[in-house]
Structures are given as C-alpha cells and as structure tokens.
C-alpha cells in the first residue's frame, strides 16, 4: 500500500517555514556568552522537525543540510561545543538558506544553492574539527588512510574547469558495513586512482570505549576529489557498498555564471530608479561584467535626458548569489523593465558532461558515438530550455498556489456560536411566517432586528478569521535591524508596540515590503553614527520604534526614529532643482508640504543614497503601494529629534466605504477615500483646452475633467456640464474631476471579484451587490484616467502652463 505523500507537501512547507521563523527568532535571542538551554532546545526542536519532515518527503538535500546543522546544535546543547557570535551568524545564514531551499523545492526546482554548498562545507569543517578535539585519534590511526592530507581547500582554476572537476563525496557507512567485507580504505584508494584526492576528512561518532564494538564502523568521510572521470565512474567504486551506506556525490562549487538581461523601459529613470546603483549592488556578490547595448539610442536632437535608452547584458561570476538575490535587487523595477536571469553554470556542466560522454563513446564503436553525442546534445538542449523556463516558473507557481492561514480555535468557536444563533432566528422567523397575522407584526420586526444583528456579528467574525496579528510582519525586523546595524556600524535598538494589532492577511502581505523600505530608510538616513550622536548629546544607541494600533476603521502603523530628522532646506532645494516646485512656491511651503515632497516620483536626494536603501528607489513606490491598499502615509520630522512616518490602512480589503453615483441608467461606486469633494459644475468655470478636453477651475487650481459617459460609452441624462455634477477625486497625488449625473447614497459595499469569472476591465476595480440584488461596478480612478488617454494628458500639460499665464496677468495688472 502506498500513500500519496504529495498531498501533505503543502502542510510540510507551511510548518517548515514556521519552524524556520521560530529558529530565527530564537537565534536572535541567543546570547553566546550565556547560553539558555531552553532557547537552544527550541532551535534544535525546530531543526529536528524540519529534518524529519524533509527526509520523509524525500527532500534529501534539505534533510542532509539540516542534519549537519542539527548535529552542531546538538553538540552545543550537550555543552560539547562553545558557540560564538560568528556561529550564530552562520546559523542565521543557514536558516535563510533552508528557507530558500524549501522555496525552490516548492517551485519544483533543484534545491541545491551555492550558499547551501558553501555552508555545508563550513559545517562539515566545524564537525570534523570538533570530533578531532573531543575524541582524539583513538581509532583514526587505524582507519585514517595514508592519503589524508591536511584540510587544505583548493579552488579549481578556470583553465581546468572543463576537463577536471571537483567532486564532493559524502560517505556515511552504516555501522554494519565492515561485516559485509567492505573496506573503506580500499574504496578511498580506488578513488585516488581516478584522480587527485584534495581532501579526506574523517569524522567519528564514537561511543564510549566500553561499548565500542570493534566490528562496527563508527566513521564517516568527507572526500574532495579532483578528477576528469564522470560521476558514473565514481559511483561504480561505491557500487558494492551502496546498500550499506549513505552516499552523496556532488560536483563541488565552482563560480556560478549568471547572465542577466536587463531591458528597462524608457521611463525607468523617472521612477527614481538608477540602474548603475543596482549594478553596484550586484557587484557585491562577485565579479561583474557589464555590456550595454546602444542600439536604441535616438539621434541627439530627439533625446530626452530623462529617458533611458540603454539595454544591458550583465555577466556575473559568483558562488554565493542565488536567483532570488538577483531578483531582489531588481525587485523595484520589475514593472518597468524586462529582466531575464539565466544561470549558465548548469549548461556549462552539461557541456562538460557532453565532452566526457563523447570521449567515452569514441573509444567504443563509431556508431555508438554518434548516438551518444546526439543524446548528450538533446540533454543539453532540454537543460537549457528548463533553465530559461525556470526563471519564470516561480512567479507563476506562487500565483496559483493556494495559501492557507491558521485560525485560532476561539475564533472558530465564536463563529459556530453565531451560526447557531442564526439558525435559531431563522427557525423563529420561519414559524412566524407560517402562521402570520397582523397582531404578530411587532414580533416579526423584533425577529428581523435580531436577524440583522446576527448577520452583522457573523460578518464581523468571518472577517476576523482573515485577521492576523501584525507581529507576523514585525517579526522580520529584529533580524533586519541587527544585520543593518552591523553593516553600517550603527548601534540600534528596536522597540515594537502593538504587535497584537490585527490586520487583514492580504493587507499584511502587501504592506511588508513598504515597511521594510521605511525601516531601512530610518536606519540608513535617520540614525546617525554613534560618534555623531554622542557629539549631539544623544545616547550612542539609536532607537527605532514600530507601533501599531487601531483607530476608527483603520490600522495605524508608525515608524519613528530618534535620528537627525529630515532636512527641509535640502529637500526644498532638491525639489526646485528637479522642477517639482517653483522657487515662488518654495517660500510658502509648510513643513508638512515640504516633507511630502519626498514622496514625489523622481525625487531622490543624492546625498542620502547608500548601498542599503539607495538602490535608487524613491519613496514614491512606498506611497504608491500604500495607496493601492486604499491607505495613506504622512510624515513628520523635527531636526535632530527624529522623524515619524505614519501609515493608515483600512482594516480589510473586502469592504469599502463607497459613494454611489448614477450615470444614465447605470450605478457606479467611487471609493469614498478617493473623493476630495463633489460640486455643481458651473459653465463659466469650465474652459476648453485644445483637443476638446475641458478643465475646471477649482478655486486656485485647474483640474482636468473626465466625462464618465464618454469613457464608458453610456447614455447620460444630459451632456450639458451645467446639469451634471462634478466629483473631484484624487489619484496618484493628482486631482481629476469626473462628470456624473447624480450622487446617490453612501454605503459600505462588499467587494466582489469581476476577474474570477470574467476578466479585468479597464476603469473598474471590482463589483458589488446592492441592496436590491443588482450588480454595481466599483470605479478605478487611475484606470478611467488611462482610458480617457491622450485627451487627459494634453489637458494636464495645458494646466501646467496655465499658472504662468495667471502670473503674467497678475503682473500685468500689477
């Protein structure tokens, strides 16, 4: 009988990721000087369950990796090994590495990463070191083969890379291996016959002398072999012991060769991104070769200095970088550029295997050699194919994979109670309906009232199921603050409040990245170096505070630091330089308005850029992400006291406060948060600006007008703007007036997906069901603006010219 284990994979992954989180938190708490055995136990237990799970499901790479980590942890637990902060860092790296391996397995890709290989070597070294110290060379004299060299570690040179390979062989015999007449020394001698043994490490798992059984093999070997032989030849040597041992043969890590094709769109520089900065971040991983492609360069006359006309091809040689690392660097420009990441190492290897396959075949019959090379060639092709595909696959996977949440049993119990009450109310109403007369009307009304309350409570508890404490997001920050502090040489203290504040899961997932960015900014730009802080009379340790709480229907998240604060003059100067504001405007700016400027697209104060937060991403991306969640962000700052960023988010994405509007026979809904004001459209305030587009004079501003009936091809009550209403809405910091026929009620609406059964509709973000059971569409302002297209752009351009005309007339009048 066999059970399909794959059905449990999802659960395994979830549990493992949780386990890794636990390990990470516990490692952070670990104080190398004063070991708390309970903390060590926690880490050990988590590692152990991951190892067990991955072995059960056949993810040997993970199991094997975790096994080494676990062995080390076990020794630490037994007080046989001292641990220093270096080791803690290594363990943290291992946690990262396991997380990555698991994600790779989840995406059905090979789980070996360069990081895992190098860590594994480090662990093996730690382990071998330990065994030599603690158990001495009691048995090793007998079993250590004479070939054993010192633990020198030779990297292959590039020249011999194609002919000679380094193989890492992990040979773990069973206790009973010697009884079957096999001899480890003989095996190792045979290995030497294939090439050069770079390293033979022997690790002993010795029992007490009293319980030592001379016929058992307590040793395991880690062998590094440099040879031109193929894997098969090595495997052949171990053929006779295959059943009596665990054997892992791997090609040792050489430098991975990555090719990154980066084709940004023209507008990429406007979003505040700078390719050069991304490249220098890449360079941190290893050797980088940059080739830029000038093919699309227009003639000098047509060139716009804000456009990016270049395309790049990058060749990266590194043994630590992973696909995810590279993607991480390009994360913020994914939308604005075409990025293709290929790992050429794999195909290189196939090349090499080709060679050996052909070489083998040529010694035999000629016909065979043809077959072999064709087969090898096919192998290479498919390897290349899968390689190029693999760069796309993970994204696709994550989109379709169903995620799950864990819900507290109290929430479920509560829900069941509610449903129970609902059933009671329903049966009461049913009975009432069966034998109804007018005298029972009060009873009916009471029953309906009860039903309404039940429904509302039920709705609230169902919503609560999706709510998770914000600590899920906050938990990543201690590690990040620690790492950043070390990297920047700043002393940091992180305070977190309100970790139990609950937030919708979808909102939580989307707020993670902006929060990381803001915290990075605060650490990088906000907090000064310790010496600087002491000079200012502040404590050397900088404090970052994260705070979350509920306010009304919103969740408020505050990120504050006690650093140097924002430099208003610098920001204003920069804004003037970048033509975001004029000098006249600058004189009247309030502090808040000035600070708000940093959220403008393309705004980046060059002085502030560093490796960490200066990947060239402006705060505008943060703001855009938060606005996409119907949230708002504001910033306050005092020089040398620090700055505070406040994010307001709706509790859930499933319900929205809406303003119902009517155009002809159709009802549409504006999200209430996007509406600035609604007013009567007066003809004298509307002016035409070329191309038939209208602008409206709203007090001192001019806002472009979009007629919903035109964009959506509807039949309005009247085309005369005088008889219509203008709803002024905000999008991306701009205002736009939308012409509608009538304003109806304001109400909370439940957002339903249009995409689920239909497809995305431009200008519509979703649908909802009104009280009468009909469907109404929820409007997406930026989509509507996009739909009205060129007309709108020309109006906007005209508006930018208008104030100058105003100034001119004022001057003339003056």
């Amino acid at each position, binding site marked *: 009988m066999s059970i399909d284990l794959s059905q449990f994979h999802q659960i395994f992954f979830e549990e493992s990721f949780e386990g890794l989180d636990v390990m990470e938190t516990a490692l952070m708490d670990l104080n190398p000087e004063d070991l708390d055995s309970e903390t060590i136990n926690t880490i050990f237990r988590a590692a152990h369950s991951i190892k067990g799970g991955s072995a059960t499901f056949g993810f040997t790479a993970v199991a094997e990796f975790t096994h080494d980590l676990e062995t080390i942890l076990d020794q630490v637990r037994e007080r046989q090994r001292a641990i220093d902060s270096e080791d803690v860092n290594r363990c943290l790296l291992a946690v990262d590495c396991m997380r990555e391996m698991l994600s790779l397995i989840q995406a059905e890709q090979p789980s070996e990463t360069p990081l895992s290989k190098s860590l594994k070597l480090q662990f093996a070294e730690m382990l071998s070191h330990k065994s030599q110290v603690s158990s001495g060379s009691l048995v090793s004299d007998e079993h250590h083969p004479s070939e054993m060299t010192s633990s020198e570690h030779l990297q292959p040179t590039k020249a011999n890379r194609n002919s000679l390979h380094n193989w890492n062989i992990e040979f773990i015999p069973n206790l009973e291996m010697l009884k079957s007449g096999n001899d480890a020394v003989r095996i190792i001698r045979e290995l030497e016959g294939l090439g050069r043994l770079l390293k033979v490490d022997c690790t002993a798992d010795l029992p007490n002398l009293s319980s030592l059984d001379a016929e058992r093999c307590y040793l395991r070997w880690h062998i590094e072999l440099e040879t031109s032989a193929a894997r098969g030849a090595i495997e052949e040597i171990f053929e006779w012991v295959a059943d009596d041992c665990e054997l892992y043969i791997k090609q040792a890590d050489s430098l991975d060769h990555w090719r990154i094709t980066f084709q940004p769109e023209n507008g990429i520089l406007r979003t505040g991104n700078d390719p050069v900065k991304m490249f220098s971040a890449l360079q941190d991983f290893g050797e980088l070769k940059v080739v830029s492609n000038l093919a699309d360069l227009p003639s000098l006359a047509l060139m716009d200095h804000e456009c990016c006309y270049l395309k790049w091809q990058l060749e990266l040689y590194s043994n630590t970088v992973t696909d995810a690392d590279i993607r991480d660097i390009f994360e913020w420009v994914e939308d604005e550029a075409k990025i293709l990441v290929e790992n050429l190492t794999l195909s290189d290897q196939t090349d090499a295997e080709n060679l050996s396959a052909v070489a083998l075949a040529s010694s035999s019959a000629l016909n065979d050699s043809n077959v072999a090379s064709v087969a090898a060639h096919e192998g290479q092709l498919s390897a290349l194919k899968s390689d190029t595909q693999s760069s796309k696959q993970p994204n696709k996977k994550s989109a379709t994979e169903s995620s799950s949440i864990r819900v507290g049993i109290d929430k479920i119990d509560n829900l069941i109670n509610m449903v129970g009450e609902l059933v009671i109310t329903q049966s009461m109403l049913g009975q009432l309906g069966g034998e109804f007369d007018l005298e029972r009307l009060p009873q009916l009304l009471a029953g309906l009232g009860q039903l309404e309350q039940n429904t509302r409570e039920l709705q609230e508890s169902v919503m609560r199921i999706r709510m998770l404490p914000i600590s899920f997001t906050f938990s990543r920050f201690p590690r990040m603050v620690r790492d950043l502090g070390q990297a920047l040489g700043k002393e940091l203290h992180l305070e977190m409040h309100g970790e139990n504040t609950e937030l919708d899961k979808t909102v939580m997932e989307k707020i993670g990245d902006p929060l990381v960015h803001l915290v990075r900014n605060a650490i990088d730009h906000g907090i000064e170096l310790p010496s600087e802080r002491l000079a200012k009379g502040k404590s050397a340790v900088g404090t970052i505070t994260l705070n979350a709480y509920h306010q009304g229907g919103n969740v408020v998240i505050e990120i504050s630091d006690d650093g140097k604060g924002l430099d208003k003059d610098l920001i204003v100067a920069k804004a003037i330089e970048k033509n975001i504001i004029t000098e006249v405007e600058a004189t009247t700016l309030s502090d808040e308005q000035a600070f708000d400027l940093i959220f403008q697209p393309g705004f980046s104060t060059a002085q502030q850029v560093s490796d960490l937060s200066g990947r060239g991403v402006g705060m505008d991306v943060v703001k855009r992400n938060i606005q996409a969640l119907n949230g708002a962000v504001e910033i306050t700052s005092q020089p040398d006291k620090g700055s505070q960023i406040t994010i307001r988010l709706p509790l859930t994405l499933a319900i929205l406060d809406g303003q119902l509007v009517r155009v002809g026979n159709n009802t549409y809904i504006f999200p209430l948060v996007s509406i600035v004001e609604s007013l009567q459209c007066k003809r004298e305030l509307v002016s035409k600006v070329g191309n038939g587009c209208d602008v409206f004079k709203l007090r001192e501003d001019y806002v472009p007008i979009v007629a919903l009936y035109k964009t*959506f091809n509807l039949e309005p009550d009247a085309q005369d703007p005088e008889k219509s209403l203008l709803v002024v809405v905000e999008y991306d910091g701009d205002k736009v007036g939308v012409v509608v026929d009538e304003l109806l009620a304001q109400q909370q609406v439940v957002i339903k997906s249009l995409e689920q059964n239909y497809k995305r509709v431009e200008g519509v973000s979703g649908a909802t069901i009104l009280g009468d059971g009909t469907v109404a*569409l929820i409007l997406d302002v930026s989509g509507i603006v996009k739909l009205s297209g060129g007309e709108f752009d020309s109006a906007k351009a005209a508006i930018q010219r208008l104030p100058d005309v105003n100034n001119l007339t004022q001057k003339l009048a003056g």
Partner: protein
Amino acid sequence: MQIPSKSDISNSSVPQSAQVMNTTDMNAHENDQYLTFMMAGEEYGVDILCVQEIRGWDSATPIPNAPPHVKGVINLRGTIVPIIDLRQCFNMPAISYTPLTVVIVLKVQTSSGSRIMGIVVDAVSDVYALAASDMRSVPDLGNAANVEFIRSLVSVNDKMIILLDIDKLLVLDQVPALVDGAFTDSSISG
C-alpha cells in the same frame, strides 16, 4: 448540410469514429448525457455535467467597453457571473429578450481554474444520452468555419445535434475571433 445516414457511417468511417472516442475521452462512459438548446432552428448540445443551472433572463449590469456579445454581469447568489449572448457570439442576428429567454449557467474549465458564466440561448430543448460511438468528427469545412470548438456532430432521430466543446468556446479572450462565417450555415450567413 448533409446528414449521413447511420448505415453509411458505420461502413465508411470507422477509423474516424474511433479517433473521436479517443480524443473525447469517453471510453469509460458508454452514454454521456447532453443538454441541448435551440438557436436559429439548429440544435446544439453541451455536456450536462458543465451545466450548473438554467434560469430565465434577468437584466444584467452592462460592463463598460465590453464586446457586444458580453451582455453584462448578474448576481448569482453572491457571485458575479458574466452573461454571454451565444447568438452574437456566432454572428447570428440578435433577438430581443423576453422573460422566456433562457440563460444556461455553465461551469467552464480554463487554464486558470473554473469559471462560471451564463449563455443566452433561444430555448432549452432536451436531454439526450448519447453514446460515444454515435459521435462523428466534424467534416473539414475549409477556412469558412472555425470548427475548433465543435466537439462532434451526432444525429438523433435523423436530426443533427452540434455538440460544443464549451471549454474552448468560452475562453473570453478568443471569443471576438469567432465572427465572420464561423459556425454558420448558408441560411444564416447569407
């Protein structure tokens, strides 16, 4: 259009029918049930297992800038379901809707999971149990017709029923490509 008589088929096109059986994966079920409906005098059939429910026409909320055959969306017990006019899909002249106009709600398998959508047809006709062995592959109609979404033809009581491959037919992005002679016979397109 010529409908070959039964004896005709069994003699001449055995390999073809075998092929149909294989491709439609119906070897396991001798008799599958099909719901048939009428449109412009022709009878069409869909696999009854795709049919979720049949309801009368009720006004739908139009979707801005949608192609003409997409009539809008309705609220089907809390789910937003698009309604598609199959006549317009097939480039047949539209008829005005009455309360007797029928909407068949179908569950369609697509690459991104299943979707629910409604199709407006003239009338629902019957439910037949059809044996896979009776189904005939679609003759090559040249470029005049796109036969990709016709699963097979079958004759019941000397009447031809066109069995639709609903999964292929209602892939929304491709629907507009059906116009111009696709799925018409001479009486309609002419």
